[in-house]
């Protein structure tokens, strides 16, 4: 069985990542990639790693009929075109924030007004570690926000194990790479200005708090820094639990939640150079790394998690969810395990 797939927004960063994953996927065939700016140009002219792909961009105005349509467009685009997308494909996977929240009220609180709110409660959040049971057969799948994904993956086992219940004070300090901003970079994203920064780009009030609250029932104090990498999101969660916890308790909780997960790695101390989650260790992969440490003096837990924002944080998560939704092998097309050594991917 080969499924046909289209990528709307194929010239963007996550769109390119989708094309890479789908082209290497045993069950998919890329039928279409859209771009307005690069209409008719080869996909390889934008994504040099896809020069072998014999495909040219086409206009998003003329969508082919496919089995699965992936939309990798800026916020607001998918909600406008959702009916067309659903006409073109039985399964739509959207990478934007348009269908991540479950109600119009939530959406309005954090964003600007939804033009297709009726889809909000039907859509399924893509992250299989969270929604594996709801995905099979889903029509509309919403891939999560990268920073939200990193945070949720880090904290979820603490909720599963009853170590947290949502009343705790939690500070989430995130460090992200420049690909998070997408392909249309402004002056602040030029190489000369963006190199070497530790730039507090969302000091407070980041919209990904909404997703975290929706899934964990937890209000977090969220701050995001841009650092000098292209791929990667690293979240450090400082948690103040109501009763003391040991490192052993934590290992128990995380092993319980993630031991059987195909894409989760636990890295929490030990020897060698890589003792805690590290974005460069998962760059290009769909893996998420989580780790933790206890700080009894401050009655604190520290949870680290690291993902590739373009993979586990968006395109990889989207393909993973599509695999589950369509009954394919869960890891199909997502086997790449990453590189070592590697610089600043």
């Amino acid at each position, binding site marked *: 069985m080969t499924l046909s797939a289209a990528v709307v927004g194929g010239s963007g960063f996550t769109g390119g990542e989708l094309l890479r994953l789908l082209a290497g996927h045993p069950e998919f065939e890329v039928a279409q990639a859209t771009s307005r700016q690069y209409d008719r*140009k*080869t996909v*390889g*002219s934008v994504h040099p790693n896809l020069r072998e792909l*014999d495909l040219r961009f086409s206009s998003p105005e003329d969508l082919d009929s496919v089995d699965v349509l992936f939309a990798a467009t800026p916020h607001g685009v998918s909600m406008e075109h959702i009916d067309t997308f659903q006409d073109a494909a039985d399964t739509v996977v959207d990478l934007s924030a348009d269908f991540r929240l479950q109600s119009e009220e939530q959406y309005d609180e954090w964003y600007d007004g939804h033009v297709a709110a009726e889809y909000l409660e039907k859509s399924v959040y893509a992250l299989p570690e969270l929604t594996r049971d709801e995905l099979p057969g889903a029509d509309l799948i919403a891939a999560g926000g990268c920073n939200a994904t990193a945070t949720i993956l880090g904290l979820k086992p603490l909720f599963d194990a009853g170590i947290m219940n949502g009343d705790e004070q939690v500070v989430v300090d995130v460090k992200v790479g420049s690909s998070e901003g997408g392909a249309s970079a402004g002056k602040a994203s030029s190489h000369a200005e963006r190199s070497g920064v530790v730039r507090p780009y969302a000091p407070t009030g980041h919209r990904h708090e909404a997703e975290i609250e929706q899934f964990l029932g937890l209000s977090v104090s969220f701050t995001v820094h841009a650092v000098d990498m292209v791929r990667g999101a690293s979240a450090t969660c400082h948690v103040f639990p109501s009763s003391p916890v040991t490192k052993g308790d934590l290992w128990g909780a995380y092993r319980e939640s993630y031991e059987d997960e195909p894409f989760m790695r636990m890295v929490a101390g030990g020897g060698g150079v890589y003792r805690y989650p590290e974005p460069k260790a998962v760059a290009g992969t769909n893996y998420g790394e989580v780790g933790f440490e206890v700080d009894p003096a401050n009655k604190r837990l520290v949870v680290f998690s690291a993902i590739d924002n373009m993979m586990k944080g968006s395109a990889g998560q989207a393909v993973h969810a599509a695999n589950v939704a369509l009954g394919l092998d869960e890891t199909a097309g997502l086997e790449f395990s990453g590189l070592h050594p590697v610089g600043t991917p």
Partner: protein
Amino acid sequence: MTEAECAECGATLDLADDLETGEIIDCGTCGAELEVIDVNPPVLDRAPELEEDWGE
């Protein structure tokens, strides 16, 4: 689909039927930007380069 030869590298390009004069396409082999000079039969020539687009 019609075919034409790349003015840069000599590779054969498959061209869409609704090609228009003046359109710029790139060669899949060498990446050269080619201008459609004529459509029937299709003739391609190197498009003027935009060096200044390209950093530094």
